């Protein structure tokens, strides 16, 4: 018998209905101990509702919630060993920083001794680099400092899971980047499981070990950032995680891991199925997904590398200089417009001008054959 490690939080077929609307629809989820997990999706996808069901602010309509193996379905928020960092921090305006941070400890019964609380507050403030801020009023602090107070206030309780509800949304771009790094470091140092809810895919991919992508109340795919990028289960994930070009087609026969696809107007392409899902059946309507950086450009088709199987002609519509890369918008008379990113190559980086006719193509393993959502 193998010993399984109990996840910090588990959802078992959890649904949440508001009247006719299913905000969360049969979600199964495990947060492994010590992991940094993101719940990613557009607004209204149900990610915040999931978070609130973990915190205990909402109770599931169906299904069960476990925290460290204990069934906590129906248990109110104040009895759950999880803590939250709210989107706008929700610091208590009538309490100073130290009293905000010690709030959780002071709710315990029996009350911990005053010196112990003071010591814990000092440590918590040191952890978020706010030593000596204890007597400050919360509204005197900057947004980033308030964020760190909120973190200290939650982490001082040593929760099973720290829930973060879009914690960086209110910060400016530079600060947000710093906080991303700080959060990652913090998570590594304290070893507590973090669950981050965000609609920002870059944030989710850069910070977390695992990302759960949600859509319309359902969990679409869970995986490491790399898995989601390279092996999306469908076009939705491929589009949400990074940019991609999609071409509609009909799946043909599969042979040695590769699938033929009939594109518009009888064009043929070859690609591979995502390793995250089963191969499409022959005759199924599919999408061919190609990342912009996987598409090659050349002056003539003969100039394209050998491994490029699919080759055709297109016209450059637009060109954006991005430094290390150049982004082209090209138009194909059958396939429509699509995006290409070319790395800078020596001095001839801006090889193509707007209006040039160019050869485009991609190797078979760059094209993912995905089910339509």
């Amino acid at each position, binding site marked *: 018998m193998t010993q399984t490690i109990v996840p910090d939080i588990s959802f078992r077929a959890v649904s949440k209905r508001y009247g006719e609307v299913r905000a969360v629809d049969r979600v199964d989820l495990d947060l492994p101990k010590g992991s940094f997990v993101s719940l990613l999706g557009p607004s209204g996808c149900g990610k915040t509702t999931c978070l609130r069901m973990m915190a205990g602010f909402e109770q599931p309509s169906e299904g069960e919630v476990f925290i460290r193996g204990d069934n906590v379905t129906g248990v*109110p*928020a104040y*009895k759950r060993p999880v*803590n*939250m960092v*709210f989107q706008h921090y929700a610091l208590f*305006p009538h309490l100073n920083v130290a009293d905000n941070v010690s*709030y959780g400890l002071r709710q315990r019964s029996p009350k911990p001794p005053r010196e112990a609380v003071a010591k814990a507050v000092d440590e918590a403030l040191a952890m978020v680099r706010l030593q000596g801020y204890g007597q400050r009023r919360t*509204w005197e602090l900057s947004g980033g400092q308030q964020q760190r107070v909120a973190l200290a206030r939650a982490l001082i*309780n040593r929760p099973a899971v720290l829930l973060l509800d879009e914690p960086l949304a209110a910060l400016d771009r530079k600060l947000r980047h710093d906080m991303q790094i700080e959060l990652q470091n913090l998570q590594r140092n304290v070893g507590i499981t973090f669950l981050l809810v965000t609609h920002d895919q870059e944030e989710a991919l850069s910070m977390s070990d695992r990302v759960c992508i949600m859509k319309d109340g359902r969990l679409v795919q869970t995986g490491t950032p790399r898995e989601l990028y390279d092996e999306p289960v469908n076009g939705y994930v491929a589009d949400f995680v990074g940019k991609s070009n999609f071409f509609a087609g009909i799946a043909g026969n599969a042979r040695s891991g590769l699938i033929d696809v009939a594109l518009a107007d009888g064009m043929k392409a070859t690609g591979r199925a995502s390793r995250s899902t089963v191969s499409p059946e022959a005759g199924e309507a599919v999408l061919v997904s190609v990342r912009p950086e996987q598409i090659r450009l050349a002056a003539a088709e003969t100039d394209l590398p050998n491994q490029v199987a699919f080759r055709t002609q297109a016209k450059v519509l637009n060109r954006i200089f991005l430094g290390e890369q150049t982004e082209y918008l090209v138009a194909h008379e059958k396939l429509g417009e699509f995006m290409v990113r070319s790395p800078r190559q020596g001095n001839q980086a801006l090889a193509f001008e707007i209006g040039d006719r160019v050869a485009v193509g991609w190797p078979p393993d760059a094209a993912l054959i995905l089910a339509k959502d």
Partner: protein
Amino acid sequence: MPQLAPISRSKTVTALLVAPAGLFFFFLLVLPLIVVVIYSFGARADAGGYAPAFTLDNYANLPARGQAFFNTLTLAPLGTLLTALFAYPLAYFLAVKASPKSRTLLLVLVIVPFWTSQLLRYYAWIMILGSKGIPSWLAYLGISDLRIINTPWAVLIGAVYGFLPLMVLPIYVSLEKLDKRLLEASADLGANSWRSFLQVTLPLSLPGVATGSMLVFILLMGEYILPQLLGGGKVFFIGNALVDLFLQSRNWPFGAAVSTALVAIMFVTIVIYMRFVLSRGDVRRAALV
């Protein structure tokens, strides 16, 4: 022709905006108050009224109305406290528990009594508190011969009834704008709903309680219809003493001295209150947020 500089134009606008309130305060508050203070050093004319003089006799005579000051200064704070105790749960229900649909209706119901004459409502209370009202119902429960009307208790009941909306509305406002996420944060940090109420809701709604209390306290300090009607003339407030002094014995200078003393007491109370509120920056901040 030289144009008005923007700054002086805005000064003109400011002056115009301030003028109505300024004139109002000067002619209807400051000027009468000066007259009252001048009169308080005068003497009573033989047939009543005011005769010019300069004497401190009227102030020396203030202890003659000591009982009225005592009654007012005990019953007004007590009435304020009771009103707050009754108003808070009501305001809490309206702001927190009532559904948004019923909330408007309930708020209107709180204010509706103000549409009727205050006299008429106090007359209704004379009957409700009279021997055929509540005491007769209590008699069925075995509490017999209870006298409520024309006692200080009737005045307190009337105060709670009459001033409840003035207390409910500021408390309601402070509770209504209370960020509900703070309560979630409190629950998240392990506080049950009662502790959350004590540690978050109550302190953050204190500015509303303070505002309402100030309103009710000031009005109760000057009250005279209420003790006259529900106190049956046996509960004697400073307001009643003033009515008698100005309209019955027509001892205007003494009445002016009593008024000045009343204004002074209220002024001191308000200053203490303001200091208390302003010194608690967190509460003020919370009130402004």
